[in-house]
């Protein structure tokens, strides 16, 4: 389809031009994440556990969101992924208000634009390493097309990503996830989050299961790959030691009004 290809190449150009001014956020550029007046409660009647008046993250930023476990960080990530919807306020991702989309469209939007890395259990146990990395391309034609544009084929792009994350060799790729070390699993998860160049990568405590050396190596790889596509990275962790490596550090307690209130009480 020529039209979609031209849109695609426009985006490529856009992404490239953004890449040249990494870490700079221009006021007129559409923010990748833009929250305003956010209210969220798991039960509609209950007091909100999440109240965020404003949060803006621009394209290409590497943001560290620090917060204690159980503070509602994971809920914020679920909101950003469009898995749950806020009762009040706006959650805009790449300029799209997720509340305007149907549940199915939100799932599609997530598949197209967001890569996710969890703390543990990132991989589907019955798929090989390569198949796990290719999963987003199975659910998103856009990611598939973009992976194809970069590597020649989704498979080649997945292999390139895995190799650049230090995972190669046919035996390794054919392995089931259970046969990998935790560090290897996290790198596979990173490759899956990055394949097809989504605009946003969200990582929820991705290094918690790793020792200090492996943690630093993992972050190095993640930063390098995000920089390649000027991908916006939002990493959530309780571990303040990670903070210095990021462009911006946000304390979750500072942006979540309920957290402030409960500390004050």
């Amino acid at each position, binding site marked *: 389809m020529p039209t979609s290809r031209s849109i695609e190449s426009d985006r490529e150009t856009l992404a490239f031009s953004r890449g040249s001014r990494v870490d700079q956020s221009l006021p007129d550029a559409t923010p990748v994440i833009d929250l305003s007046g956010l209210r969220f409660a798991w039960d509609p009647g209950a007091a909100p556990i999440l109240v965020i008046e404003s949060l803006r993250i621009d394209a290409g930023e590497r943001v560290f969101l620090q917060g204690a476990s159980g503070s509602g960080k*994971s809920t914020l*990530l*679920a909101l950003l*992924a469009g*898995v*749950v919807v806020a009762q009040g306020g706006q959650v805009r991702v790449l300029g799209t208000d997720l509340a305007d989309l149907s*549940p*199915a469209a939100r*799932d*599609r939007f*997530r*598949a*197209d634009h967001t890569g*996710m890395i*969890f703390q543990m*259990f*990132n*991989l*589907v*146990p*019955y*798929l090989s390493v390569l*198949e796990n990395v290719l*999963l*987003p391309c*199975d*659910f*998103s034609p856009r990611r598939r097309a973009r992976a194809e544009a970069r590597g020649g084929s989704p498979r080649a792009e997945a292999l390139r990503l895995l190799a650049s994350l230090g995972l190669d060799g046919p035996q390794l790729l054919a392995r*089931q996830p259970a046969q990998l070390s935790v560090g290897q699993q996290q790198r596979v998860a990173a490759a*899956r989050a990055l394949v097809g160049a989504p605009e946003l990568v969200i990582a*929820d405590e991705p290094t918690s299961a790793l020792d200090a050396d492996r943690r630093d190596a993992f972050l190095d790889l993640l930063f390098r790959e995000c920089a390649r596509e000027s991908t916006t990275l939002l990493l959530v962790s309780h571990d303040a030691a990670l903070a210095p490596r990021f462009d911006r550090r946000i304390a979750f307690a500072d942006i979540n009004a309920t957290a402030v209130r409960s500390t004050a009480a």
Partner: protein
Amino acid sequence: MIAVLALRSLRHRRATAALTVLSIALSVFLLLAIERLREEAREGFAATVSGTDLIVGARTSGVHLLLATVFHVGEAGSGLRWSSYRALAGHPSVAWTVPLTLGDSHRGFRVVGTTEGFFEHYRYGRAVALAISSGRIFAGPREAVLGAETARRLGYAPGSNLVLAHGSGDDGFMPHADRPFRVSGILAPTGTPVDRTVLVSLEDIDALHAPERIAQSDDPLAAALMAAEPTAEASRTITAFLVGLRTRTSALSMQRAVNTFPDEPLTAILPAATLQEVWALVGVAEQALRAVSIMAVVVGLAGMLVALLTGIAERRREMAILRSVGARPSQVFALVAGEAAALTLTGVIVGAVVLHVALPLARPWLASRIGLVVGGVWPSVLEWQLMALVFVAGSLVGILPAWRLYRHSVADGLSVRT
């Protein structure tokens, strides 16, 4: 995509999946096998006697007459006079008649006195005639033709001698030891009660019973005289006779003619109709068999349900991962429901294939031991329906775990809260 994932997931859990398929396959095998045997048993039963339009005996209930004359169950009761038989045999609509005299036995096998006409006219199954597998039919005095099972169980061959007894017990009582019989031939298996009979001529039955009456007179001369002479046909009684009509449409009017026969009270039955009546009595057992096979399917599907439900806890993480890469909750549902459907389908196919491989192997055994002639390799319409029913039931069973995982995946989102 979801189908591929479902298959990969099943392959990953192949031990559980194989056990589930096995239990479904076994239950489907049982269901189809019982259904097939039931069907064949019913058909075989209905075809125990075919080509006979009426069975006529002394006045009694139709079921009793059928059981006594065809199945040799119960006592034959009082007989009918030879003159009545002759009169009815001469009726213009009658094509042929075969007289039967019951009441004697040989080591637990019923003795049937009849004529050569029995071998000519008796039909079973789809109008199959009796066939001699070795020897020949009785021709001279004191010759007997054995049913296949009689010969096999008692180890007789043409030329063997046997002694008949009056009555139907294991050894009977009052053995006619003075008049041994010689086996002239053995019938091929039919799967009907004929297999368990000893067939002799009416004249031999007459001769067997004649001396008994005389022996009590204590007059050696009279006894010798009577024994030398065959009993007069006029004084003979028979148990019943089979009737073939010239046209089947005259069956009802002929039945009426017999039932209103003026010389003595008689009963005529249409064997097919009375067989149906008897089968209705057996129908309870038939339903019980079917209930058992349905229970087997329920158990098989319950096994799958348990396997799927116990897998839910560990699969919640897997579903969160799939959700994170863009799977919709409905796709999570389809994944689990699809697995259940695939397991059931495989189980149904395996069960059906095993049955259709096993059937030809079991056929000779079934035919010789149980007398069931199981034909047909392809599933009948009913069997297709049963298989479809099991598949639908299995797919419905999958809805419960699919729905629960769907609910979980909606609630869990990307992080599994336990």
